[in-house]
C-alpha cells in the first residue's frame, strides 16, 4: 500500500518535472502589427500540439534592426535559435559558416523527413547552395505585382479588364490616363526590386555574373546593359512627362494607390491585404509588364520576403525542437492558413494545391497571380534569384543612383554605370572579408 502510493507520488513527480522542463526555442522575427499576431498564433499552435518544446516568438524590430541585434548577440554568445532574415541578407548569412546551421542538416540530424522538391522551385532555389542543400527555411515570400485602378481606367476611356501586358501598352495607357486629368498615373514600391532585379529576371537577363552571385563570391553586377539603360530611360521619360511619381525606396507607394491617388502601382504581392481593406474603388492585380521585343520575356519573377535561419552553437536538443517547428510550418494546412491570411505565397506545391481545392482563389480572384508569375516558366540561371554580399548596401546604392535619375541630376546610363562601379566595390569588400 505504502509502496504503491510512493510509486505513484514518484511517478507524478517525474511526469510533472518532465512536463515543466520544456526546451525553449527563441525565434526572432520582424513581422509587426497583424502579421506579428499571426506569427504569435502559429507559435502558440505549435506549442499546444506537443509539450516538449516551446517556441517563443519575439518581434525584434525591422529586418535590419533585428539582424544587427542578432549579430551582436551572436558575438556575445547569446543568439536566438531561429532568426528571420530578409532576402538581401541571404549572402551575409550564408557566408557566416559556423554562425549558422543549414536547414537541411538540422532536419537530417533530427530525423525529420524533409523533401526540398516539395517546395516551389523559385522559392527553394533562392535559399539553396550550389550543392543543392537548402540553407534556410523559406517562410514569407512575396513577389512584385502590377495593380491597376479600374475606375480610373474607365474614366480615361480604357478597358478596365485589359490591363497592359507590355511596356508599350503601358505607356499608351499612361498617356491616356494623363490626358484624362489624373494627377498620379503610375507609382512603384521597392524601385530596385521591381525595375532592376525583377526586371532582369522577367526578361531573362543577368543581374550579375556567376548566376547572379549564386555560383561564386567573385560576381560582378551587370545592370548597366543596353536593355537596363533603355528601361531606366523609359522610366525617366515617364517621370518627366508627369506620368511616373516616385514615392521612395520602400512601400510608401502602396498607400498612394490604396488611397485612390494613383492609377497604377507595381509593388509587393503583400500589398493586396491592405488594398483589399482600404480601397474604395474597383481594382485588379496582374502580371508585371514586359518588353515584347526581348527574346525570352516574360520568364519568371523572383521572390522577396524573408526566410528562417538556424543559428549555430546551440544544443542538439534545441535543434531537434527547431526541426519539429519547421516540420509543423511545412504542413499544407498551416501553409494555407499563413498564405491566405497574409498574402505571402504558399511555399509548397501541396499547400498551393490545398488552397486551390478549397476554392479560395475562386472567391478571391487575383490571390494566385503571384504564384502564377513566379512559376511562369522553369527558372533559368538568370531567374533563380540573387545572392550578393552586403546587398543591403548594394540595393541602397542602386536606389540612390535611380533617385539621381528621377531628381534630374543624372542620365540613366551614367547612373547605372556608377551603380555598377559602387556595387562592385561593395561586392569586392565582401569577398575579401569572407575569404577566410
Amino acid at each position, binding site marked *: 500500500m505504502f509502496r504503491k502510493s510512493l510509486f505513484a507520488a514518484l511517478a507524478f513527480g517525474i511526469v510533472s518535472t518532465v512536463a515543466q522542463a520544456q526546451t525553449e526555442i527563441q525565434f526572432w522575427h520582424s513581422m509587426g502589427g497583424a502579421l506579428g499576431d499571426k506569427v504569435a498564433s502559429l507559435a502558440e499552435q505549435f506549442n499546444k500540439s506537443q509539450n516538449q518544446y516551446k517556441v517563443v516568438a519575439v518581434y525584434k524590430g525591422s529586418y535590419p534592426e533585428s539582424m544587427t541585434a542578432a549579430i551582436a548577440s551572436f558575438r556575445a554568445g547569446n543568439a536566438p535559435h531561429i532568426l528571420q532574415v530578409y532576402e538581401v541578407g541571404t549572402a551575409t548569412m550564408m557566408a557566416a559558416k559556423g554562425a549558422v546551421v543549414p536547414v537541411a542538416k538540422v532536419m537530417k540530424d533530427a530525423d525529420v523527413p524533409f523533401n526540398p522538391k516539395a517546395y516551389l522551385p523559385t522559392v527553394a532555389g533562392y535559399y539553396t547552395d550550389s550543392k543543392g542543400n537548402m540553407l534556410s527555411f523559406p517562410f514569407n515570400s512575396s513577389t512584385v505585382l502590377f495593380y491597376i485602378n479600374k475606375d480610373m481606367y474607365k474614366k480615361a476611356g480604357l478597358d478596365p479588364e485589359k490591363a497592359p501586358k507590355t511596356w508599350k501598352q503601358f505607356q499608351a495607357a499612361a498617356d491616356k490616363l494623363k490626358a484624362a486629368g489624373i494627377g498620379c498615373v503610375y507609382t512603384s514600391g521597392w524601385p530596385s526590386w521591381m525595375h532592376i532585379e525583377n526586371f532582369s529576371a522577367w526578361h531573362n537577363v543577368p543581374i550579375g555574373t556567376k548566376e547572379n552571385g549564386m555560383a561564386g563570391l567573385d560576381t560582378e553586377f551587370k545592370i548597366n546593359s543596353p536593355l537596363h539603360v533603355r528601361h531606366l530611360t523609359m522610366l525617366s521619360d515617364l517621370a518627366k512627362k508627369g506620368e511616373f511619381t516616385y514615392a521612395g525606396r520602400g512601400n510608401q*507607394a502602396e498607400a498612394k494607390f490604396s488611397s485612390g491617388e494613383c492609377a497604377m502601382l507595381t509593388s509587393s504581392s503583400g500589398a493586396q491585404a491592405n488594398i483589399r481593406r482600404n480601397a474604395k474603388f474597383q481594382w485588379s492585380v496582374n502580371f508585371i509588364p514586359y518588353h515584347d521585343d526581348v527574346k525570352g520575356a516574360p520568364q519568371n519573377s523572383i521572390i522577396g520576403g524573408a526566410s528562417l535561419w538556424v543559428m549555430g552553437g546551440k544544443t542538439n536538443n534545441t535543434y531537434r525542437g527547431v526541426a519539429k517547428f519547421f516540420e509543423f510550418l511545412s504542413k499544407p494546412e498551416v501553409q494555407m492558413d499563413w498564405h491566405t491570411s497574409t498574402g505571402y505565397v504558399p511555399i509548397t506545391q501541396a499547400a498551393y494545391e490545398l488552397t486551390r481545392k478549397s476554392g479560395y482563389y475562386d472567391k478571391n480572384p487575383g490571390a494566385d497571380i503571384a504564384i502564377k508569375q513566379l512559376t511562369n516558366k522553369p527558372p533559368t540561371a538568370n531567374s533563380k534569384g540573387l545572392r550578393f554580399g552586403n546587398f543591403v548596401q548594394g540595393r541602397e546604392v542602386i536606389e540612390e543612383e535611380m533617385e539621381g535619375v528621377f531628381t534630374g541630376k543624372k542620365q540613366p546610363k551614367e547612373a547605372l554605370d556608377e551603380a555598377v562601379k559602387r556595387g562592385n566595390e561593395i561586392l569586392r569588400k565582401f569577398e575579401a572579408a569572407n575569404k577566410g
Partner: protein
Amino acid sequence: MVENRPWGTFLAHAVLIIGVILVAFPLYVTFVASTLTYDEIVNVPMPLLPGDQLLENYSQVLLSGSTKGSSAPVSTMLMNSFIMAMVVACGKIAISILSAFAIVYFRFPGRNFFFWMIFVTLMLPIEVRIIPTFKVAADLGILDSYLGLTLPLIASATATFLLRQFFLTIPDELAEAARIDGAGPMRFFWDVVLPLSKTSMAALFVILFIVGWNEYLWPLLITSQESMYTVVIGIKRMIAGGDASNEWNLIMATAMLAMLPPALVVMLMQKWFVKGLVETEK
C-alpha cells in the same frame, strides 16, 4: 529701450507674437491631429480645429500602441523613458558630485591625470563610438535592459565641471572650520557641501532629465524588444509605411505624450532651467 517709442514697443510685441505663433504652430497642429480620426487626417486638407477623438486615440496608444507598426503600449514606453531619464539624471549628478568633490578638495597623485581623463570625454560624444560601445554592451549582456539604457550614459563630464566650478566658489573658511572641528572630509561633504549645492543640483537635474528623456541614438541601438522601447524611439518605430498609411492620429497622440513631461519640467522649473543652461556652458 531708452526713448519712449510706443510704436517700437508695439512692433516688438507684434514680432514676438508672430514668433510665438510660428514656434507653437507645429504643436497646435499635432494636438489637433491627435484628436481626429485617421480618415479625417488623410482627407486633405486636415481640419484645423480639434476633433472629438481625444479619449479614443489616447487610450488606444496608451494601452495597445498603434495597429500597423509597432504595437507596444505607449504607457510602457512612457515608463521606460521616465525610468531612463530619472536614473540618468540622478546618476549623473550623484557620480559627478563625488568626482568633483574629490578633484577639488583633495590633493593626490594622479589628480591631474584623472581630471583630464574626464575632460577628454567631452570630445567623445556617443555618436563617434556607437558601434564599439554597442558591442561592449552586448558583451556585458545588458542589451534590452534598463542597465543597458542607463549605465553607458551615466558619466557626465559637463556635470562634473559645473559642480567643480561651483565648489571652487565655496569659501575656504567653511572647510577650515570643519577641519578645526575635527570633521572628516565626508562629514564636510554631507553637512556643508551638499546643502550648498542644492540649487546647482536642481538646475542640473532639469537639463539632465530633459537630455535623458530625449535620448535617441543610444536607445535605438540598444533596444530591439518592444517592451524596452522609450517613447521617443517608439514614435519613430510607429512610422511603418508611407505617409498615407501611417496612423497619424495615433502617432501624433504619442508625440504629445512624449513631449509632455520634459515640457512640463521646463515650464514649471523655468528658473532652474535657465540657470542650469547658462551655468553649464561657463
